[in-house]
């Protein structure tokens, strides 16, 4: 499996009569391979969810292309068999008047009507165990009787019932406590080991760093830096990445002051310029602080 974004742009119409336009995503290109977690990092409003929604076919691209295994995104049943999304607020995915496990029944009805009830029940239980939950404790419960972490894991279990190859996880850990959060992150790591591609969307740099092989840093809808996580976080080149990293509070180290953001022709105006490969596997839209690319 390979998710490929090529020069993807999303322009929203804004203003009272849609008279103005606004590029929420601006010429973004990156890919996600099987067995890999790529984290998409950016502050709120940077366009992360818009990218997630375009990949899931929930909103069309304005320009550019998104393909999975070479085929364009298609908001259709067959596409969702392989590509699924899980979002920040797990509660909004459940109807409070129905038991939480109805989400599994809906999958059966639309994808596996021919599977017998007994066999389906077995599949559901094993998917629930795969996400480290005890079926006896979560089946037959209403959403309000389950914790955010449990609901979030049930949604991942639902995705596992399909033959998914790509999971878009949008801020799925931001409402969880530290201890539950790490369990969900470890679960995503296991999915990757099983060969899934995961796009992990977050504003939390330390979580992205923990999980992802590769990292894409987004600012104002454009990629400012991307590449192997070790490189992007170990030797950040873009002043914006440095600033974000400096703002992360660490347990045993003083809170660094923001790195100087020396002017550069690319980041001065907000949006960034074209990416160039600063070193193997490490792309940046802005030069090192000591000089701009030729």
């Amino acid at each position, binding site marked *: 499996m390979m998710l490929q974004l090529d020069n993807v742009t999303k322009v929203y119409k804004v203003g009272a009569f849609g008279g103005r336009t606004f590029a929420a995503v601006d010429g973004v290109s990156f890919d996600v391979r099987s067995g890999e977690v790529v984290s998409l990092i950016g502050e709120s409003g940077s366009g992360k969810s818009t990218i997630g929604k375009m990949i899931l076919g929930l909103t069309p691209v304005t320009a550019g292309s998104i393909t999975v295994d070479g085929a364009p995104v298609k908001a259709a049943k067959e596409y969702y068999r392989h590509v699924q999304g899980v979002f920040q607020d797990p509660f909004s995915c459940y109807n409070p008047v129905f038991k939480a496990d109805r989400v599994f029944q809906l999958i059966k009805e639309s994808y596996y009507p021919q599977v017998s009830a007994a066999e389906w029940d077995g599949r559901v239980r094993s998917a629930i165990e795969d996400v480290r939950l005890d079926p006896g404790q979560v089946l037959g419960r209403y959403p309000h009787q389950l914790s955010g972490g449990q609901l979030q894991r049930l949604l991942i279990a639902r995705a596992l019932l399909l033959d998914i190859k790509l999971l878009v996880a949008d801020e799925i850990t931001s409402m969880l406590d*530290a201890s539950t959060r790490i369990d969900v992150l470890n679960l995503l790591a296991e999915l990757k080991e099983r060969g899934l591609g995961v796009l992990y969307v977050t*504003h939390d740099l330390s979580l992205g760093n923990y999980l992802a092989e590769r990292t894409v840093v987004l600012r104002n809808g454009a990629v400012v830096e991307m590449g192997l*996580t070790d490189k992007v976080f170990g030797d950040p080149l873009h002043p914006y990445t440095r600033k974000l990293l400096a703002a992360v509070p660490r347990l045993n180290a003083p809170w660094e002051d923001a790195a100087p953001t020396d002017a550069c022709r690319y980041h001065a105006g907000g949006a960034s310029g074209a990416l160039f490969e600063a070193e193997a596997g490490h792309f940046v839209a802005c030069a090192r602080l000591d000089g701009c690319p030729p």
Partner: protein
Amino acid sequence: MSLRVSELRVYYRTLKGDVKALDDVSFTMRDGEILGLAGESGCGKTTLGKSLIRLDGRMRHVGGTVELDGRELPIGDDRRMNAFRFHEVSLIPQYSMSAMNPTRKIGKMVGELLRSRGVALDRAELESRLELVELPRTVLDNYPIELSGGMKQRMVMVISTLLNPSLLIADEVTSALDVSTQKAVAKALIGFRDAGFVKSMIFVTHDLALTSHIADTVMVMYAGKLAEKAPSAAMVTAPRHPYTRLLINSLPEVGVRHADKKLSGIAGSPPSLLDPPAGCRFRARCPVAGDECAQEPPVAEVEPGHFVACWKA
């Protein structure tokens, strides 16, 4: 001593019985101290904050006392508490950003609020405080919706501290913000303490790393009780309570990679506070629990200023 909370018990009345959200909690705060209050969601942080200022309809003051600057706060008496609110104790509630009245310009809202408290607006003072948190004066002519999350949060901070309360409680004020905005708001809070706008502050958050940078002392609660309270540095470098240790071990610091070091969460979940278990409330999840843990562990001072409620600390 700024604040002295003694054996405080505040329960929620529900149809199924009392939820013992704050169950015999005692601690003190020095003048000028910022106390970080941490712990998993549901452990009673918001309940503690609310108890010091306004009990909502279902909350009941079951026992214990709260003393602020040597005077007892009548926390169970909504009317008598009015004299203290805003003047002596102020709260920035969780989700306060979305609670600002959307139909009023901010300047007008501030004026009305002060008038309702019988205080005249000191425009010069207000503007100097806006400057301190790096907000332009023009925000007073804006509607709340026109401000970004971080700007709103700083505005709420300025408003809640206009009357220089002795104690400010900030409940999860940075939790919904991006890291760089979070840092600006955190620094502004410290600035308010340093400038003497508030004498002491309770900074509530579930983020231990953040707390350790803002607070002088950190208090970790578990299931309605105090688990550990220590100077910030000691809390992160030498935690003594098994719960605090596990909590800290579950934090992915920048630089920690799943491939190199697999972190783990704490198995199980906190007990129901409707009918909490006898003995240590962490017992069912504690990896070092023993027979003695069937009795409730007392809070002991293991080092000066370092308090732990655990038989094995």
